């Protein structure tokens, strides 16, 4: 009798087509790992192309899924654990693009630093898979699974530069703190389960919509711990202190991925869990996010001013960008979500572009990021300087770059939800930010090159990243409507429909 019952346990139905993007990334990574372990002399260009191809597969399948979504609407699969909606597909494109660009940057980087091998590409692909799982997750357990996949790979990636002590330190630091934050998350999930009786986002949302908790201590504690864990992942203050050290120490291509892909995945979770699932209890968590957003903006932009190292300065500026995206989260509205998505998309490209320039400028050893080393770049390398100028303008939020529209969007969302004071903090942080980027521009364009200035060359694959990022930054800056339509449609839809 018992045996018979056990046999009838039905595996949940799995709609493989929805899982295609993550399968492309995961299987692509594992296949190339297997191939290189069988055949030792696979050339580096093949590995890079394979990695980029896997990301391309994920992006193309996402486009197909997007069209399918237009016809059939949102659904979920694997017993409601994986949600299929515009939001998850949109972010898949962001994360896959981030991985592809990081791979392209890593190609000449590994060669220059004498670190040839397949590991970095594989880890990037697997980490990206984790990020996509997070974007698709409709269940806190699945979300945690994705997060750990993403993080484990990034811990190793940060320590990837074997001969650089700072890189080892970065990996270690990120691992210890990251593991610590994961425990917060897990505990938060447990408390939320305790309060609502489910880990499934759809059920949690339904439960909160239909029940009024008399004792909401468990729920509040759970949300608080969840916020701590996620704020750590996206590098928001006051859980940001790892960011400068890790960004400074980790290999520059990996930093590109951390700032674009990892951030996108972290915000995917924040938007999906906080802004959507907990939308019926906004009053409980919005004040916390408000404080976090304001702190992040202030600390990020002010600490960046005093930096003498460009890479470290950009690490702080990435903190303040996280603050801006937080504005989209705390709006807890469709406008906020699509503004945050627009931000994440455009930011992924422009931060990858910035890091592409730094990958070249860092020189052998990946550690020369002083302002002096950038002096006169406008005269020495006009094209590279022009590209970097576009990225810095975009980060500063100068009109006709994607960065302006992105900032405008999130601030609009914050004003729309009447979070005026955070919006005011944000615009002033933007002014402080502009000062930072001007500092770099002054070095590049207004100061004479130093006599011993290193001659730099732009490797082909880095050139591809730079060109793509410039095109995306200007195109969506001048014609934001092209992307805005997608971002507006890419909303979280928590539905049990198959």
């Amino acid at each position: 009798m018992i045996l018979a019952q056990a046999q009838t346990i039905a595996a949940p139905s799995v709609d493989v087509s929805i899982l295609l993007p993550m399968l492309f990334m995961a299987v692509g990574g594992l296949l190339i790992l297997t191939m290189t372990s069988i055949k030792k002399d696979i050339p580096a260009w093949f590995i890079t192309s394979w990695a980029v191809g896997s990301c391309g597969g994920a992006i193309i399948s996402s486009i197909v899924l997007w069209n399918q979504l237009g016809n059939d609407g949102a659904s979920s699969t694997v017993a409601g654990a994986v949600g299929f909606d515009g939001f998850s597909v949109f972010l898949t494109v962001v994360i896959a693009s981030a991985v592809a660009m990081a791979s392209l940057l890593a190609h000449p980087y590994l060669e220059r630093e004498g670190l040839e091998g397949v590991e970095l590409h594989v880890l990037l692909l697997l980490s990206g898979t984790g990020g996509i799982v997070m974007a698709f997750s409709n269940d806190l357990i699945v979300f945690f699974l994705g997060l750990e996949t993403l993080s484990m790979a990034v811990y190793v990636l940060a320590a990837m530069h074997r001969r650089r002590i700072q890189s080892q330190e970065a990996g270690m630091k990120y691992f210890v703190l990251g593991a610590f934050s994961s425990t917060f998350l897990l505990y938060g999930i447990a408390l939320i389960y305790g309060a609502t009786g489910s880990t499934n986002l759809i059920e949690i949302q339904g439960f909160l919509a239909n029940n009024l908790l008399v004792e909401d201590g468990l729920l509040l504690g759970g949300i608080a711990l969840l916020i701590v864990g996620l704020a750590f992942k996206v590098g928001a203050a006051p859980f940001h202190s790892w960011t400068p050290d890790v960004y400074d120490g980790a290999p520059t291509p990996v930093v590109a991925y951390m700032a674009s892909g990892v951030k996108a995945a972290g915000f995917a979770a924040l938007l999906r869990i906080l802004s959507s699932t907990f939308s019926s209890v906004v009053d409980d968590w919005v004040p916390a996010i408000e404080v976090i957003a304001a702190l992040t903006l202030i600390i990020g932009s002010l600490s960046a001013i005093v930096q003498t190292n460009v890479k470290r300065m950009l690490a702080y500026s990435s903190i303040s960008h996280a603050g801006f995206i937080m504005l989209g989260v705390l709006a807890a509205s469709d406008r906020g979500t699509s503004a945050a998505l627009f931000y994440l998309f455009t930011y992924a490209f422009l931060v990858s572009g910035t890091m592409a320039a730094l990958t070249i400028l860092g020189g052998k050893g990946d550690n020369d990021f002083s302002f002096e080393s950038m002096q006169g770049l406008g005269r020495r390398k006009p094209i590279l300087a022009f590209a970097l100028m576009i990225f810095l303008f975009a980060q500063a939020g100068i009109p006709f770059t994607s960065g302006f529209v992105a900032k405008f969007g999130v601030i609009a969302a914050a004003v729309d939800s009447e979070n005026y004071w955070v919006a005011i903090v944000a615009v002033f942080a933007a002014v402080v930010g502009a000062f930072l980027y001007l500092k770099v521009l002054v070095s590049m364009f207004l100061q004479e090159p130093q006599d011993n200035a290193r001659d730099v060359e732009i490797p082909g694959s880095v050139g591809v990243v730079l060109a793509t990022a410039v095109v995306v930054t200007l195109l969506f800056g001048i014609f934001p409507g092209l992307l805005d339509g997608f971002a507006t449609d890419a909303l979280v839809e928590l539905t049990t429909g198959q």
Partner: protein
Amino acid sequence: MTNFLVAAESSAELSFPVLTSLIVVPFLGAVLVALVPKARVEAHRLIALMASVITGALSVWVLLTFDRTDGGFQFRSDDPNVWIESLGIRWDLAVDGISLFLVVLTGFLFPLAIIGVKPEHSPKSYFAWIILLEAGVMGVFMSLDLFFFFVFFEVVLVPMYFLIGTWGHGNRIYAATKFFLFTMFGSALMMIGILAIVFFHESATGIVTFDVVALAEGQNWGVDAGRWIFLSFVLAFSVKVPVFPVHTWLPDAHTEAPTAGSVILAGVMLKLGTYGFFRFGLYLFPEAATWFAPVLMILGTVGILYGAAAATVQKDLKRLVAYSSVAHLGFIVLGTFAITTESLTGSVVQMVNHGLSTGALFFLVGWMYERRHTRQIAELGGLQKAAPVFAAMFTLVMLSSIGLPGLNGFVGEFLILLGAFVANPWIASVAATGVIFAAVYLLWAYQRVFHGKAEGDNATMEDLRPNELLVLFPMIVLIIFLGVYPKPMIERIEPSIEVLVAHIDANVDGWTEPTADVLVAEESHDEGEEEEEEGESE
């Protein structure tokens, strides 16, 4: 406001998007300059010149086809392109009597700035930035969509930053950074203000739009909110104008900027702020503007006196001209917030006049610096002997700047003071002394620079070259023409001003345009002032 409907109908016949081309032509010019290889030195200048001349010609065409009897917006597309659908942002351009002459002034000054001065180095990027700047400035003057207005308002900082920072003199990096941060800081809060009124409008009507006409007609925000938001706009425009006490970036920026940069900065860029006061101050927030008007009138007057006093004591000739701008712009602010038909018309006229006369002054000072490599008044002297034509031109332009009757400067200042006197005789009386001060500092400077005994290089300074005369000639012609016969300009400006005043009248309870009646009868004088105070306190 039927006038706006009429305007929309009249523009329906238009097929060629002339206003869009005023932005696109210089923009494409900049792209083209950027694409031409560095080695082809003359090509960059030629392309920039061509683009700016075409833009100038188009702006003149707009002027000629402008319907002078119509006070509403003209050349407006019925169905503007949607730019960002979710926010209702549209590419919506138009001109009316207020912006028309600023557009023409921009189209007129840029070719001159390009002909008038050659950069000392890196001509390619210089011409690319300058022509890009023209596109941005045009955009500010013509955008009816608040988003695009803000975008252009911000984006003009970038070319100007590089123009000052790369081709400027002395302390150029400091001046450029100060200019950039001051202006960006000023406009930061305006962005929140813009968004706030858009969402207030949305919650009242359900429509998200950045259309300034719809927003101004709707007035869907409370009195208090309106006043706060108005202040955020005022801060942005005050920095740009600049209004005392946020003017401190101006002397640095003007002094360190290259000659063409100073000409454009003074000629058109300061007008972005004063124009903003009209379109996005008075028109968008009539209630708040009338409420704050006395304060702004006083600030304008302080600017007049402070600018004059500061100009008097300057040792650097270019800095002196820069401070004279602060004083002139003070008149414009005064005229704007006196809110009478005369003073508002005068302010628009004065914007154009200041562009011409101060632009010309900056050219002359720049050429003087090229020849003598100093701007210190003490090191100059007796230039009249060696360069008589130079001195004659300087005299004429200076007299226009002082506001001598018969030259253009007089018309604007007279109208402003006339209107301001009706609105508030006390403030106007104090402001009027600024005209005398202007004569003091400019004539004194003239005397020290051109008269006296020439020593050293001053005795052999080269006179104006033919190409420099060519640049000055059209400016001088306009200075005299507008001084003798301002009617064509005024009759195009006035209908729009009347529409604006009617708009304020309709939207502010208890406000009526101050009229000269209060001054006619001695007895009713006090009464009139009381009425006015009542209007203010409401």
